[in-house]
């Protein structure tokens, strides 16, 4: 906006303001009504939905699938949309950072003096698209089940390990056979082709983020951990 546009806006605005009403009581009434509504909704939700408390945090358990609060679903889903591992950091850190910077810079990017949403179609469309994308990702996150079964056939000696893998939340981030999500972690169906046993074990103990470490499992339940590593080490392409 150049100087003239600024002055014109300020002039127009002061006229609009002069033709307006007093904050008290006209705006205060509406705000108070909203306050009552907000309180009512919160109380209603608290009564209806309560506050569940799950089992106590236990770093040694393996059957827990990380799941954030719903308003982080869109970020979490972003992880899944981006598949190649070298881009994962981009999705988890890069995109949110870029979004924040863009949001902060918005007033300097959009210098169009027009304010009417119908007369600035690009900004309005961009806004609607962003909202749509976030809503879609949130919905995906809400619908994404947390699979706990691996149907892939395996030799009997690896079945115990397969169950550990199925119940350890790996499927939230990895696909094994037909089960699990296809991101953010790589597909594990043929992991043994790519990584030797030791490397798999190392990955479980010292993973690259965002994968959590399963060191605690090794310390607390070494047999289960060995079963898991054994099972992963058996995952090869079958003809």
């Amino acid at each position, binding site marked *: 906006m150049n100087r003239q546009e600024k002055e014109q806006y300020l002039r127009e605005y002061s006229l609009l303001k002069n033709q307006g009403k007093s904050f008290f009581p006209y705006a205060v009434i509406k705000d108070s009504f909203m306050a009552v509504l907000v309180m009512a909704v919160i109380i209603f939700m608290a009564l209806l939905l309560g506050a569940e408390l799950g089992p106590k945090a236990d770093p040694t358990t393996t059957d827990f699938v990380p799941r954030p*609060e719903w*308003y982080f679903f869109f970020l979490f889903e972003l992880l899944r949309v981006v598949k190649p591992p070298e881009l994962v950091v981009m999705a988890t850190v890069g995109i949110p950072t870029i979004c924040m910077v863009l949001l902060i810079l918005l007033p300097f990017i959009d210098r169009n003096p027009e304010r009417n949403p119908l007369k600035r179609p690009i900004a309005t469309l961009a806004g609607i698209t962003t909202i749509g994308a976030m809503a879609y990702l949130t919905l995906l996150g809400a619908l994404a089940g947390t699979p706990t079964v691996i149907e892939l056939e395996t030799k009997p000696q690896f079945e115990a390990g397969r169950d550990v893998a199925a119940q350890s939340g790996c499927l939230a981030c990895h696909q094994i056979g037909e089960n699990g999500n296809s991101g953010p972690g790589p597909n594990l169906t043929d992991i043994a082709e790519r990584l030797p046993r030791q490397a798999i074990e190392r990955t479980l103990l010292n993973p690259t983020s965002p994968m959590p470490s399963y060191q605690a499992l090794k310390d607390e339940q070494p047999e289960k951990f060995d079963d898991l590593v054994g099972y992963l080490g058996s995952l090869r392409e079958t003809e």
Partner: protein
Amino acid sequence: MKMLPPALRPRPKKPGIKPAKNGNGSGNGAAVDENGKKSKPPLKERAKPVVDGAAEAGVGTIGWVDERSGLTPFLRGFMYRKVPKGINWFQTLGAATMFAFAAQAVTGVFLAMYYDPNPTEAYESAARITNELFLGEFVRGMHRWGASVMIVLIFLHMGRTFFYGAYKYPRELNWIIGVVLLILTMVMGLTGYLLPFDQRSFWATEVAVALTGSGPMIGPYLGDFLRGGAEFGPATLTRFYALHMLLVPGLIAALIGAHLYLVVKLGITAPPWLKAEKRRELSEEEI
């Protein structure tokens, strides 16, 4: 003395009496007020209605506070400022967000009375609040769902300011403060999620902190800072507690203050499709 606000300036008595003593000599033992008027204080002092403030003082508590704070003119300016014509319900969303924050603050204080951030006690104290305390689960529920309500409202409010073009001149700074408030509100959601210390909170936070740590440059430092070390441990919980209880809400409250100051100073935008009445033709010509 020029710098002092009216309520802090000396009562008229003093500037009145002093010149009297030095100049005319004493003898005016009559009412102080009269004395003040007669002896002609310097023009600067006389021009200001100090006497009125002093006369009203002591009329109840409000007068007492007002004499010492000068709040009334400020409140009057705040309450009787004009809002432009056409203000609508979408423009109450900011206030609604603020009420949600206030509700979070109140329920949060009650939770803090019974919550124990020690990792061995955290879950037990959360369980005690939920299962044993009178209305405990209700207050926890309010805090929990209040967080969701606040997030929904803050996004709606942001959407409103976006579609109204309210981030444009002269309100750019308020938009930026708003973005910081949005980020801080999300941080509240993240740090609060760990506190009950059940499985959900633990594993979700583990992943979230790992994600933070995977960022380039400051990522690893930020991750270590959140965890309170290289490993997710007891220090993590107390850190999240301090962030969630003190630092972040303090920042949010301060920034809400700045945000509202700017709203009052700049005035709230009118719906952008409205034009001021008299100037309709003129402004179209100018475009």
